[in-house]
């Protein structure tokens, strides 16, 4: 028996569970939909979600009920739900498992959300690489349509909720909700200036809610078992429910682990994921995807909830926990993440577009042992001129690896630079980087 009760991964852990409609119905699937659709007024559903304390599982952790509440009241005309299945934050691979192993759990959540916010159309924006996931979802949608759970007359109530799968095409930024909307409109995935927020001006300029896969998958359970039940799990009042944490890197058993929020990193890494792979001590870990600042072994007792990780100077983010053992070169690790951000910067805001190129260039020079001591100040200066100066949170994210490794492992940078000075190999890099 697992130590903690599973909610989202429970079905798929049953032997022989295929994720088909039949299997899902057998485990009580679509009961939540039957219970409320056409029977409970939509605002009450929003109230239930609000009371459950459910917060977005994509990264920002915004309360789901509050987000729904921002939709304009009494608005006549179409409104949309978008399910964010772009899952592109390095270190994160939970949505993929939810989609491919239990697609109806997500679909039931989507239809419940559509009913609550009055949307008749929902788009699942899935990252382009998940070809199998898109196929599985399309098949599940067809099954649900035949059974009357999705379509123009859900369970004979006359209520409409159509669901479509829309594949992205390989752009990290499209996980940002307004870039996702731009991409869904057939444009380059450039984040929009906010306000206005998607709640009033979203897809096709209509009121829109964008929710993460895992967020939506929680909805049937909240409806079935009640908001009080959900709010009692995890670390109430601010971080309720479970989260699926994706553990990667130097551990014995990497993978997806669903635990109540509020367990410690120590438990996640050493109990759930089996501890370090070669029994070398832990050196560093990233707590919430590539955008989250690195933490150290001193932070192992920090609780995995939104507030505790924020208080420790990082963020719970997408739930991607990457573990690094003693001997990992932290400057190299920061460079690898920086190269990711450089590759994925959408190019809209100059601080991010130009700054990421300068950061990569400076970091590469240091790693190649051709750095100079003033490069460290240059890095900090660049980071400070990116952070908070861009349209979306990408700018804040891209400086996190460098700022946090400089904070905790500055001597490693200094050693590399001293090696450069000793070898007297200092050369100037070309000033222009090919983008």
């Amino acid at each position, binding site marked *: 028996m697992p130590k903690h009760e599973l909610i989202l991964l429970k079905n*798929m*852990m049953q*032997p022989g569970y295929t*994720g088909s409609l039949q299997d899902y119905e057998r485990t009580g699937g679509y009961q939540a939909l039957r219970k409320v659709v056409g029977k409970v007024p939509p605002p009450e559903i929003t109230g239930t979600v609000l009371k459950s304390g459910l917060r977005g599982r994509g990264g920002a952790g915004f309360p789901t009920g509050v987000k729904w509440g921002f939709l304009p009241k009494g608005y006549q005309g179409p409104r949309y739900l978008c399910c964010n299945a772009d*899952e*592109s*934050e*390095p*270190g*994160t*691979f939970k949505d*993929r*498992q939810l989609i*491919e*192993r239990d697609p109806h759990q997500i679909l039931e959540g989507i239809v419940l959300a559509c009913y609550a916010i009055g949307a008749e*159309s929902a788009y699942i924006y899935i*990252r*382009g*690489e*998940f*070809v*199998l996931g898109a196929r*599985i979802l399309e098949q599940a949608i067809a099954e649900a349509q035949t059974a009357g759970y999705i379509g123009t007359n859900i369970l004979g109530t006359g209520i409409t909720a159509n669901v*479509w799968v*829309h*594949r*992205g*095409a*390989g*752009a*990290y930024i499209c996980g940002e909700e307004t870039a996702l909307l731009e*991409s*869904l*409109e*057939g*444009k*380059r*995935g450039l984040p929009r200036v906010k306000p206005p927020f998607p709640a009033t001006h979203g897809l*096709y300029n209509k009121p829109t809610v964008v929710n993460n896969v895992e967020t939506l998958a929680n909805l049937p359970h909240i409806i079935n078992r009640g908001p009080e039940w959900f709010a009692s799990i995890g670390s109430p009042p601010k971080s309720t429910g479970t989260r699926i944490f*994706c*553990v*990667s*890197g*130097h551990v014995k*058993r*990497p*993978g*997806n682990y669903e635990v109540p929020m509020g367990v410690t990193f120590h438990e996640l890494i050493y109990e759930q994921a089996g501890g370090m792979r070669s029994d070398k001590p832990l050196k560093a870990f990233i707590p919430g995807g*590539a955008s989250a600042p690195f933490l150290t072994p001193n932070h192992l007792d920090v609780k995995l909830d939104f507030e505790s990780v924020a208080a420790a100077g990082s963020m719970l983010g997408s739930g*991607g926990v*990457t573990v*690094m053992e003693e001997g*990992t070169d932290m400057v190299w*690790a920061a460079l*690898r*993440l920086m190269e*990711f951000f450089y*590759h*994925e910067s*959408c190019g809209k805001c100059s601080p991010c577009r130009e700054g990421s190129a300068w950061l990569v260039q400076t970091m590469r020079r240091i790693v190649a042992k051709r750095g100079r001591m003033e490069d460290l100040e240059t890095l900090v200066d660049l980071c400070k001129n990116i952070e908070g100066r861009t349209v979306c949170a990408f700018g804040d994210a891209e400086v996190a690896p460098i700022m946090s490794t400089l904070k905790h492992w500055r001597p490693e940078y200094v050693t590399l630079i001293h090696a450069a000075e000793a070898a007297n190999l200092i050369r100037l890099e070309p000033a222009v980087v090919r983008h």
Partner: protein
Amino acid sequence: MLIEKYKSEIDSILSRYPVKRSALIPLLYLAQRDEGFVSEAAMKEIAVLLRLTPPQVYETATFYTMLNLKRVGKFHLQVCRSLMCALAGSDTVIGWVKTRLGIGPGETTADGLFTLSTVECLAACGTAPMMQANEDYYERLTEETFDRILADLKKDGTCSLKTGPFMWPEPAPVKDET
């Protein structure tokens, strides 16, 4: 012409969206499936279909890394090089491609069979190192499985080592209670 060849599929794509331009990426995918890459002729045709200007199509097509504007090999190997895979040895995988096929990132073998691209995170960090070959994921790569994948792809066009519906760690085997 795409419209003659895929009339019903194009109609079905268009029917999903209240605004035509939303069908752009799906149609670019269709063009890529047809020719192996997105050609200029296809982009012009799509522009007409969606009542866009060719530059509007081009600006979208050039933003997304999965849309190939140039021909790639029959098997497009995409090895993830992001930190999580790098910690598990993705640079070694890139080395295997080099020694087996003689190609580096961005290159295609002379026989046109394989193209190597290095890509950023494909959401398989717990099963690193990994690569995607065309539509399929291959994870927890070892030298042995890697060689088998290359051999199978050459021989059969596919390999049984590809990942099915993803779950990791796999559930513990059921214990016989009797």
